[in-house]
């Protein structure tokens, strides 16, 4: 193999990987600008690099590329056949119109075909520049670095996900750098390199890069220490949606509140304190609207069914919900006054009956536990109604007796409460097992999961919530990556973890209790606003029934427990220790500590601090500027303190000596011993030594000149030189 062939082979690889690198630039641009046609642009890059590789003369390359660009434009924007007069007219027209627009600075008039054309020109220039770097400079470090920065920034601050991209970029980047270095060696070498050396060179390069990336890929990676700022950025963009019941598609900022569609959870929420209803009730209540049973890995839907079991109740009739009302205390009545119209009832737990002056019928859908209000066949909102309820009470003894074997005899209608998507990562199930492994009863397992979030660094935040895309699972992302979210994240995760352990569970939507705004006849009036929209969990225990759980940090919903077991037997569930007994917070209580990490918070804190301390900042900058000017003027006083230790760390070789020598020249210059440009080093050295009355500079210069002009760098005693050098540097700073 001749040297030329060797070089050609290495070049082919270099251009191949540069093409891959360039494609990683192209992908996000195509992705984010919604352009499409990645392949067509890719082919253009391929053609360009191939031409550069073949060193095709521009007279041939230029027309081919121009024709290709024209063909792509015609192909994308028109149905014309390429070799027709119309096509020529189209292209000609495009150029004439757009160049006129450009010249008159009428940017809006520039058409899309022409933009595509300009984009091609940009790509063309980039490939040209890359070719220059590869061929002439034989160094692609800057481009590589910028590619990495570009991808990481896009990954962090835009919806583009650079997960795979970054791996490709890094591996191909390192390979290119290595290959370019190999080529440099080949270039400097007089004859051809031994084939074995070349194979070893490239082989070891490839294996190191591939092996290290494989290991890096396989190793577990720490979760992000910084919350994803994308939702924040999107929320501040002017395009953010202001729909009022948007649990809509992720992306744009949604406003908090009740909505029907939960197919895609995630994304930031803006506060909305519009009142939804007022409840006058003696006890603090969660208001349940409906439940959902099918988790899609992105959100919730209800399982399709052919014949939903719907029971019709008249006003005043006892309602049979699948959570039986309690029996121990007297029934209570909640007066509900709606300020927004919804055709369904806000259900307190242990609902018994609904009364209203409006003539409506109620229909309870067994599928989702929703209690709709009808007038005839039409859904009708009810403005005011009274709900009679008796909060269910659970026997702790019965709960403690629930064991996993009880689950075996569950009827098939519970299957939908055990559904999990096939794509659910196994680590979620593994996590569920590890959380619950210490608990025996089903109830304790559920409590362990409920507690898990509070104890493991999760935090509540409405602004900084990721929307899973691609194959990402909503729960998996929350549990392992983001660990930041609001009720939907916590409740959905708990349901999935419960189901992973075989405990039937469902996702409940409704409103949290709201805030007391006044008292009427001694009873508190709760104002429930859109901010109180909430989701939580119901789990089913055989022989006990459905029971609510509140995994969301900052919220609590006490369940009536009957502590009917021996005290020595319960270590955890003494009232002092139960999470329920922690001082009750209103659900809207965001815990300051937990949110403090949020990006918005940090940004606004910074902004506030800046505006508060303008004068301080100004004077600090002025001070720093003066200080640095002073430091610069007197740099030779302190620079030596840095130069000496820094250079001591370097190894004793010619390159270090050369650097040190030139640093010394600079220091001498700033000291005031200037070298004329026509003055030789040895003449200068004599002059310097005459100043200090020693021979250090002549010693150094003699060695330097011998090495530089004579290319004779053997047998140099660098230690001795270093002494002379340090001596001079110290004299200069003294």
């Amino acid at each position: 193999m001749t040297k030329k062939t060797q070089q050609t082979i290495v070049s082919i690889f270099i251009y191949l990987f540069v093409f891959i690198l360039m494609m990683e630039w192209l992908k996000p641009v195509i992705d984010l600008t919604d352009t499409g046609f990645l392949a067509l642009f890719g082919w253009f890059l391929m053609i360009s690099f191939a031409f550069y590789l073949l060193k095709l003369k521009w007279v041939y390359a230029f027309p081919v590329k121009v024709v290709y660009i024209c063909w792509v434009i015609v192909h994308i924007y028109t149905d014309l056949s390429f070799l027709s007069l119309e096509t020529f007219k189209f292209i000609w027209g495009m150029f004439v119109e757009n160049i006129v627009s450009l010249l008159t600075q009428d940017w809006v008039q520039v058409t899309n075909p022409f933009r595509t054309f300009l984009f091609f020109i940009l790509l063309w220039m980039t490939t040209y520049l890359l070719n220059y770097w590869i061929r002439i400079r034989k160094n692609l470090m800057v481009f590589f670095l910028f590619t990495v920065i570009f991808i990481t920034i896009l990954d962090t601050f835009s919806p583009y996900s650079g997960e795979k991209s970054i791996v490709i970029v890094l591996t191909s980047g390192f390979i290119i750098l290595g290959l370019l270095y190999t080529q440099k060696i080949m270039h400097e070498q007089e004859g051809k390199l031994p084939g074995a050396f070349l194979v070893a060179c490239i082989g070891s390069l490839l294996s190191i890069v591939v092996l290290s990336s494989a290991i890096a890929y396989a190793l577990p990676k720490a979760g992000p220490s910084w919350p994803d700022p994308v939702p924040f950025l999107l929320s501040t963009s002017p395009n953010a949606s202001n729909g009022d019941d948007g649990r809509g598609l992720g992306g744009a900022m949604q406003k908090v509140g009740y909505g029907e569609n939960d197919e895609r959870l995630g994304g930031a929420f803006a506060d909305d304190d519009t009142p939804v209803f007022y409840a006058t009730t003696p006890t603090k209540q969660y208001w349940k609207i409906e439940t959902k049973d099918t988790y899609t890995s992105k959100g919730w839907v209800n399982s399709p069914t052919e014949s939903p079991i719907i029971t019709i109740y008249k006003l005043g009739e006892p309602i049979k919900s699948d959570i039986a009302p309690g029996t121990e205390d007297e029934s209570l009545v909640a007066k509900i006054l709606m300020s927004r119209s919804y055709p369904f009832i806000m259900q307190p737990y242990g609902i018994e009956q609904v009364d209203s002056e409006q003539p409506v019928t109620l229909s309870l859908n067994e599928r989702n536990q929703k209690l709709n209000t009808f007038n005839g066949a039409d859904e009708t909102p009810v403005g005011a109604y009274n709900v009679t309820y008796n909060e269910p009470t659970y026997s702790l003894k019965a709960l403690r007796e629930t064991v996993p074997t009880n689950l075996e005899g569950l009827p098939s209608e519970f299957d939908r409460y055990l559904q999990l998507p096939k794509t659910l990562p196994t680590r979620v199930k593994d996590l569920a097992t590890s959380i619950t492994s210490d608990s025996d009863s089903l109830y304790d397992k559920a409590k362990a999961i409920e507690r898990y979030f509070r104890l493991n660094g999760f935090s509540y935040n409405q602004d900084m919530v990721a929307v899973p895309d691609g194959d990402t699972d909503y729960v998996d992302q929350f549990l392992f990556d983001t660990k930041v979210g609001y009720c939907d994240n916590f409740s959905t995760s708990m349901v999935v973890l419960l189901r992973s352990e075989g405990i039937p569970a469902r996702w409940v939507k409704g409103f949290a209790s709201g805030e007391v705004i006044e008292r009427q006849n001694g009873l508190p009036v709760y104002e429930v606003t859109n901010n109180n929209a909430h989701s939580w969990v119901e789990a089913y225990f055989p022989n006990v029934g459905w029971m609510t759980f509140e995994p969301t940090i900052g919220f609590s919903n006490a369940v009536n427990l009957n502590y009917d077991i021996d005290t020595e037997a319960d270590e955890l569930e003494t009232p002092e220790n139960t999470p329920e007994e922690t001082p009750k917070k209103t659900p809207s209580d965001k815990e300051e500590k937990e949110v403090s990490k949020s990006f918005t918070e940090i940004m606004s804190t910074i902004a506030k601090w800046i505006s508060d301390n303008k004068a301080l900042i100004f004077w600090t900058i002025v001070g720093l500027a003066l200080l640095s000017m002073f430091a610069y003027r007197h740099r030779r006083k302190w620079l030596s303190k840095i130069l000496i230790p820094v250079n001591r760390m370097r190894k004793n070789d010619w390159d270090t000596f050369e650097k040190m020598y030139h640093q010394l020249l600079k220091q001498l210059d700033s000291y005031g011993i200037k070298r004329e440009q026509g003055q030789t080093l040895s003449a200068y050295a004599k002059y310097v030594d005459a100043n200090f009355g020693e021979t250090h500079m002549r010693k150094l210069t003699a060695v330097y000149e011998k090495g530089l002009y004579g290319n004779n760098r053997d047998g140099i005693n660098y230690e001795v030189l270093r002494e002379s050098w340090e001596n001079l540097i110290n004299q200069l700073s003294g």
Partner: protein
Amino acid sequence: MRERAQIAAIIENIEKVMIGKKNIAELAVVALLAQGHVLLEDVPGVGKTMMVRALAKSIGADFKRIQFTPDLLPSDVLGVSIYNPKEMEFEFRPGPIMGNIVLADEINRTSPKTQSALLEGMEEASVTIDGVTMPIPKPFFVMATQNPIEHEGTYPLPEAQLDRFLLKLKMGYPHPSEEIEVLNRLEHASPIDTLMPVISLEELIELQRQVKLVKVDETMKSYIVDLSNRTRQDTYIYLGVSPRASIALMRASQGLAMLYGRNYVTPDDIQYLMPFVFGHRIILRPEARYDGISSEEVLNRIVKRTPVPIKRKISQ
């Protein structure tokens, strides 16, 4: 190191007869090592002839002297074929040029025709007489002198001819104390008669071969070219130096480096030699003369303004 000792011995030998002219002796030796020729420009009686004779004696070379006069003919320099009636054929009588060290005294006194006969011999190291080419024995070193004072009846050497000399030197008057020393030495005897050769001709030829092996770094080559270029662009210079001058400067620098015992050329060598190599190769504009600037000053100015390369060239 051996080379350095040999060269030092030559110079020391010359110094025995030439008081206070070490630099001229050194430069003459440099020219000898670089296989170039020297033009000495000075008034009579400052020791030019003594210098050449001492050099010739030190290397054990054949010394010839030609006194140039207006009526000197080329054949007086090169040699002539004379009909030998006994042998019935022409017999070549070699001229004074067929020596190792030739002193061409007052070269500007003779006609251009004779001058060029000498200079061609210097350039080609051979002479052609009656169609027969004869090589001049090696080493061949010409030291020509010219008197700058008398212009009457002289034929100044044209620029093209001056280019044939590697160096142009000036002896100058000795320092009074040195002059006293000269008188002291010559009071009773002539030291030139007792001089013994310190190296053989073969050793000298070997030295000349070694000079070409002295390393000239890329940076030094570009420095030489930079200097040459600047003579071509200088406002005071009407005609800058030729590429032959660049070669001469490089060769002379190699010789000087060897004289100092180095096997590489430094900018100091180049700077030191540059006025001697370039001085007679440039033509100043009349403006320079009006401003009272000599060619040495112009060249010194160029040296001062040309940046000395002090860093490795970054190869692409």
